[in-house]
């Protein structure tokens, strides 16, 4: 399959719209959500608004959780303002995205492989700019990074002055209403004059203004601000939103379209009416007009299920709900809860259960359970019971740095520990953390970067520690350390998170290093400046400048 811009556009559009539930589904082992959802159902969701909690537990007992809302955005967002002079007039799309950690890795893995069905077809999936080699989405992420906090706005067919005025109004509104703060990144206007005449480019629009701003709020504030854009009447009342910021891989995003009809027209203009992609998109949303917003927050957490687990309470365990609180859905709109467990986990019961009334749905083949939470009020939790013993032991792997930050020229002690938090010993443990040396072969590392042990008893640690000497300042990446172990008849593997370590500059040290390395030029320059200083100090002391005395 050769990728061209049309495919890329469709992939990006669909990925953004569907990434939230799809990433959860994919993380659970490739199961497919097998729902036959009709067109009316989608329009009901959009017209009335909907929220969904979509949680998935992978075979390692690691949760992926998404909370999202779709539908007509709240008045506070201001999308409903229309007409000349209004801030969203001419705006095709507003997107806010804040991510941290490995969240995008998961999403991009999904888009690159399972989501667009390219698994096993990589030999045909070659980036056009390279003559050889496979298209590797991970390498793209390594190239651009995975931590973003951005506001993106696109205006079409408005004057430059209007676009800037409206963008300023939107920024001001988001700042005053939701606490967002922004810094300029990109302000680009494209029209036919943008391209050299010899290209003979014909655009499907007269002008397009693209604005990209960095959200300068700390990550947790940015996520809280995105959550603040949502309807607060439903599940959000029961969710401790810190779960979306404390997790090492987490994020939140908003996609708001002030007028879906305009967007569809623009897409049609891009791709032509005969395009398969355009036909597909417009066929799915034939009568949709007016504003639409999708907002979601999610995280990939640490292991929550282990050998002794036989139950999971979705809101309490995964969303930080207080045990005494009850859960209610949206006041106006649809509320859904979904949980997916690995296919080999034998689900014994779930609560509440109302398949007879079509309020709940369990697909044993995929391990997926749906609740129509709109039907339940003051629900204590959504609970699933299953047979014990199918998840691995509770093993923790963590990496720490001492000191937490340092200046160039110093050394940091890195400790990697594996902790058996389970109920049985584990065997044949191998702990390896050598990827740092592979990444930075010129950096001096002393100490032990890998070890083995025949057994690790309950409550015991297996540690390695090494020292890294950073000559240069900068940001350094520590790729995951990995532990493999035997439990029962199975060999398990678990990795730590990706860690970053920041080495700050040493101004005085750098200056002296600069002088030393720059010899003899630096000595000459310092000599000349110093000589001038000495002469002037002498003149001051003797009071014999050309004026005979001295005052500054």
């Amino acid at each position, binding site marked *: 399959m050769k990728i061209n811009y049309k495919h890329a556009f469709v992939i990006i559009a669909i990925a953004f719209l569907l990434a939230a539930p799809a990433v959860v589904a994919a993380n659970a082992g490739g199961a497919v959500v097998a729902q036959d959802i009709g067109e009316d159902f989608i329009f009901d969701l959009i017209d009335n608004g909907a929220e969904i909690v979509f949680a998935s537990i992978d075979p390692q007992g690691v949760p992926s959780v998404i909370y999202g809302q779709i539908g007509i955005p709240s008045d506070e967002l201001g999308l409903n303002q229309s007409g000349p002079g209004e801030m969203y007039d001419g705006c095709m799309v507003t997107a806010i995205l804040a991510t941290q950690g490995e969240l995008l890795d998961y999403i991009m893995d999904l888009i690159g492989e399972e989501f667009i069905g390219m698994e096993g077809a990589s030999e045909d999936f070659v980036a056009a700019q390279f003559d050889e080699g496979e298209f590797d989405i991970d390498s793209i992420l390594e190239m651009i990074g995975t931590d973003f906090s951005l506001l993106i706005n696109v205006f079409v067919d408005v004057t430059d002055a209007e676009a800037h005025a409206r963008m300023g109004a939107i920024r001001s509104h988001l700042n005053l209403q939701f606490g967002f703060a922004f810094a300029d990144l990109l302000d680009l206007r494209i029209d036919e004059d943008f391209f050299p005449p010899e290209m003979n480019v014909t655009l499907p629009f007269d002008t397009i203004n693209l604005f990209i701003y960095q959200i300068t709020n700390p990550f947790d504030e940015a996520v809280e601000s995105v959550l603040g854009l949502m309807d607060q009447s439903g599940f959000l009342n029961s969710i401790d939103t810190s779960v979306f910021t404390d997790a090492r891989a987490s994020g939140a995003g908003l996609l708001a379209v002030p007028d879906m009809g305009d967007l569809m027209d623009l897409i049609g203009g891009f791709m032509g009416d005969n395009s398969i992609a355009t036909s597909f998109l417009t066929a799915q949303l034939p009568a949709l007009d007016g504003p639409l917003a999708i907002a979601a927050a999610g995280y990939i957490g640490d292991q929550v299920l282990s050998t002794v687990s036989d139950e999971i309470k979705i809101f309490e365990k995964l969303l930080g709900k207080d045990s005494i609180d009850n859960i209610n859905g949206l006041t106006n709109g649809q509320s859904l809860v979904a949980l997916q467990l690995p296919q080999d986990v034998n689900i014994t019961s779930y609560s509440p259960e109302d398949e007879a009334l079509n309020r709940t749905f369990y697909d044993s083949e995929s391990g997926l359970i749906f609740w129509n939470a709109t039907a339940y009020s003051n629900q204590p939790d959504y609970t699933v019971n299953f047979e014990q013993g199918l998840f691995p032991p509770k093993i923790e792997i963590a990496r720490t740095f001492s000191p937490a930050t340092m200046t160039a020229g110093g050394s940091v002690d890195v400790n990697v520990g594996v902790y058996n938090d389970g109920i049985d010993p584990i065997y044949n443990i191998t702990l390896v953390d050598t990827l740092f040396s592979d990444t930075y072969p010129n950096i001096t590392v002393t100490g032990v970067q890998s070890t083995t042990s025949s057994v690790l008893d309950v409550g015991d640690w297996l540690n390695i520690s090494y020292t890294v000497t950073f000559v240069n300042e900068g940001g*350094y990446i520590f790729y995951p350390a990995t532990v493999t172990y035997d439990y029962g008849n199975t060999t398990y593997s678990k990795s730590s998170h990706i860690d970053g370590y920041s080495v700050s500059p040493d101004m005085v040290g750098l200056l002296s290093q600069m002088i030393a390395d720059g010899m003899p030029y630096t000595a000459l320059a310092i000599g000349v400046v110093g000589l001038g200083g000495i002469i002037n100090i002498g003149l001051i002391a003797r009071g014999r400048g050309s004026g005979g005395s*001295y005052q500054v």
Partner: protein
Amino acid sequence: MDIGSISLFLKQYSTHQISLIINIGQSVNRLEFGILIEPICKEENIISSFSSKYFGWLISLLIVLLGGWFLLPQGYESAIAILAPSLGNYVRPALVMLNLILVNPMNSFTMIAVWAGAGFVGGMIAGTKKGAFVVGLMVWLACLGVIALCVFLLYQDGLALGTLVIPPGSSLIDLLGIPLIQGAIDQILPLISGIGGGGSLDIMALITPLIIWFLTPIIIVIVAGIIGSIVRPKEDF
């Protein structure tokens, strides 16, 4: 002892010298003390011509360097975090100087303020328009010297781009926070698309904004210096 009266008066000896005269006693047996007071200001400039320029240059250069160091845009910080592990510690001073030397007047307001402030202070110290011009020019030339040194040191350390890694917490998009890149996109994207469409690379279109950005600091520092010299000229008596 009756010392009579004490009187104080000033007596001018020359255009430059005044004495404070103290008389003690009677008219016959009087004791007269004289304290010669040298004027602190004269008809000529009070700061020597060389000294004013020297200190003006030194202070201005310090303002520029410290302002450049501490007011580095976040985009450059991200670039340093990415580049410094591979290229060494001289990446920071090189980018600090690059940020100082190439100033896009349309979006790099902080650096414009740094250059203007440095020029203004230097001009005030220099005290004359000519002095301010020299100070501004020398500050700019000194910065060129420093960036040349940084590039030399970078080169000397060895350029090895093989292990560039984006550290956690940042992304290449952060580099858009560099004012130069923000300003360059408008110019560079059409050029690139022109090449892709079979057009030829318009070198002048590429170089013109660079020339403007390159000359912006020296214009600002000299103009601000002249204003400073007008605001606080050397005092005449």
